[in-house]
């Protein structure tokens, strides 16, 4: 297992280098440029902008800029934002916690909805409950998150006034207060994942309940709840875990939109602003961090496989 982990960690290095190269090239070749954006402003200080361009090396060919960027990155320096003239690492550091809070809460929301709904839908197959669960899952998967977000804001924020419409309180925020602020964005972000996992849980549970071990357990007098949660669910959980890991990536991607709608200052909003301004160092930094998070989650999922199913061996 140790060897496997070391190998996996080592293989992430070329993956991350590859991602950084592709993103750098894509942004460099994409139309739009942060310096042009500054220059087009009627109040601009042309002299100082030209100086900034030279200082940041933006007047050099893109591949030279990439080499310079990687040199700095190896020394732990992610560069400075062109737009805000602030260290990228510091800006990411300020935001990453909020994105983690949002994604973890969204995962919890989706798991809390999906697992009970899916299991019960499988246990009460073709009942009203099953049809309702399938319908809820369908709505979750089909409804665009930005639309759901606006509906929730209008209903719970404006009409009922129960919940704040922003993602996080700015000051004096206790944990309870933060959770209250995170409810709407987490439901919005987690709804799609909840829909997918509900359908998957239902399908895998139906399959597991039809297996010999479930029948044997029933024959030996195991209660239905025992069959469901002691025998069927552990066997059905591996595909759910795999999908959960894969979906985590889409949650990070979805955070870009949800953070903007709910004014939640996280990595997604930072990335969005960076792209709008073609702030290359900031785009690179945020994408790299997203990539690292995704790779790390997939690694954790692999480790969890071994814990959940001791038959799995990587060595």
């Amino acid at each position, binding site marked *: 297992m140790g060897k496997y982990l070391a190998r996996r960690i080592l293989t992430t290095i070329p993956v991350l280098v590859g991602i950084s190269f592709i993103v750098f090239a894509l942004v460099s070749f994409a139309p*739009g440029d942060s310096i042009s954006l500054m220059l087009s402003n009627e*109040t*601009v*200080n042309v002299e100082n902008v030209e100086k900034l361009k030279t200082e940041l090396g933006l007047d050099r060919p893109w591949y030279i800029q990439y080499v310079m960027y990687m040199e700095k990155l190896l020394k732990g320096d992610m560069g400075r934002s062109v737009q805000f003239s602030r260290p990228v690492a510091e800006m990411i550091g300020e*935001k990453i916690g909020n994105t983690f809070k949002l994604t973890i809460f969204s995962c919890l929301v989706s798991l809390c909805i999906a697992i009970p709904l899916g299991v019960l839908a499988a246990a009460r197959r073709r009942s009203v409950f099953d049809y309702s669960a399938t319908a809820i899952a369908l709505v979750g998967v089909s409804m665009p998150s930005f639309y759901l977000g606006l509906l929730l804001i209008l209903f719970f924020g404006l009409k009922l006034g129960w919940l704040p419409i922003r993602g996080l309180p*700015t*000051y004096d925020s206790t944990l309870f207060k933060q959770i209250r602020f995170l409810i709407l964005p987490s439901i919005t972000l987690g709804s799609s994942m909840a829909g997918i996992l509900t359908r998957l849980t239902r399908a895998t549970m139906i399959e597991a309940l039809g297996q010999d071990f479930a029948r044997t357990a029933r024959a030996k007098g195991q209660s239905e709840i025992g069959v469901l949660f002691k025998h069927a669910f552990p066997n059905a959980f591996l595909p759910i875990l795999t999908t959960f890991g894969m979906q985590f990536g889409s949650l990070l991607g979805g955070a870009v939109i949800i953070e903007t709608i709910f004014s939640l*200052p996280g990595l997604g909003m930072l990335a969005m602003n960076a792209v*709008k301004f073609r702030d290359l160092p900031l785009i690179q930094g945020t994408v790299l961090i997203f990539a690292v998070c995704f790779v790390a989650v997939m690694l954790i999922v692999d480790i969890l496989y071994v814990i959940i199913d001791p038959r799995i061996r990587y060595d």
Partner: protein
Amino acid sequence: MLRKAFTVLVVIALLLGGLTTVFAATPKSGGTLRIAASSLQSLQLYKTAANDITDSQSVIFDRLFILSKDNFKPIPSLAEGWTNPNPLTWVFSIRKGVLFHDDNSVFPKGTRREVTADDVVYSIGFMQKTSTAWTLGPITSVKALDRYTVEITTETPQPFLVNDPNRLCRMCIIPKEAIEKLGEDGFAKHPIGTGPYKFKSFSPDSGLLLVKNTSYYLPTYLDAVEFVVIPDPLAQSIALQSGEIDIIKHLFNLEMATSFEKNTKFDVVKSGGGSYRGIGFNTTIAPYNNPAVRKAISMLLDIDTAYKAVIGNHGERAYGQVPPWVPFGYDPSLKNLWSYDPAQGLKILAANGFKDQDGDGFLELNGKPFKIEIKTLPGSQVKTLTILATQLREKGINASVLTQDTAVWADDLVKGNTTVFFDYSFAGTTGFHSLFHGNMIGAANTHFYNNPEVNRLLDEALTKIKFDELSTLWKKAQRLVFEDTVGIPLYFEYSYSVVSKKVVDFVPPWGGLTLVSSENNVWLNK
């Protein structure tokens, strides 16, 4: 008897009415004013001209002067007054007894320091060295004549140094020792100024909290001012209606202005300024390098119908770049340059080689397909441009509108990859100079227009201290530019703030946000 009683009742009613007015007009202390911001990523000085950042800074820091809400002319702020002993020299007298904020790592609680002329000299130097957003122009020296007097000398006479909302008016007075101790990055995390509200805490892209500066030289009524970051305009509008915020400083969606106007809980406050919106041509690319073609295109456009259909009463027709609210250069006589005369326009085009040779209903130029693609960034103008493009199509010109991402639009414009484009500026005092002076090619002059006579007139105008002389030259240059049809002025769009009824004495930002000044002082009437 009845008549007497009626008279007494009327008198009592008048007295009560008068008393109510008196009480309503008496400022109350307390409360937190919550202002919506679209983005507040950093408090670094002078790195970006973004409204939210500069507006928040103008509450923390004092400036030498601010622009009057009535006529945009400079009025004293940290400087009590200024003189022009000669056209190249400006002498500012600094207000005595103004203190930097305390209770921070540079000035511990109770150890405030008075602002002196040396601080002004340092602050100007800092701005010159670090600013990418603003420029101060050709300053040759800045020196302190005594503890409270600063002298600025310029290479040439520089009236815009004080008249432009984007020059000295943007300069924040900062303490040298704070920059030395904290560095630029550190200072941006904990700005120390002399303004009416002092820094308390900042969470990038979440919010900025400022608290009352109890030692300010004018009374400050609010306990605190909070800038609340809500990027989405619709979410800002919902937050205002739900009471989470009190003010939207810049309402970009004009449809929302109409909707808020009908709501009795809010005031839609028109800013004294606004923005110029037009169609621009890259004058170096054929066929737009031919003034006759540009003129002919302008004659095919029914601008009044187009802009009124979209923005209604939220703007007015523009005939030049300078709007009526700027104290110089507005020239209503430019109206005679523009006429809606499609027949004449098509005649000019025909004389310049435009003809529908293949019978597809669209004109070709010298036998080759001719197409106009108006490049624009997103905004309310897209609808107006679409109507204008439709008008051109009806007249036989294959025209369309391409809405681009702002960065792409700007890059295409600056690098000359655009032929016809949405042209806009903040219609400020120097917007015209930036858009059309030859020196600004490669930056804001995306028309690539370089007319030596226009350049000369503008250069000369920049040195005129007297408004009437300046205005004459500005008008001459403007007339030359639009006789050349370098651009087609469409309209001036008003800008608005939406303010909760409980907020009193709010003035929409112009050259920075002013919450406390000799002209206004914001308070909450709860």
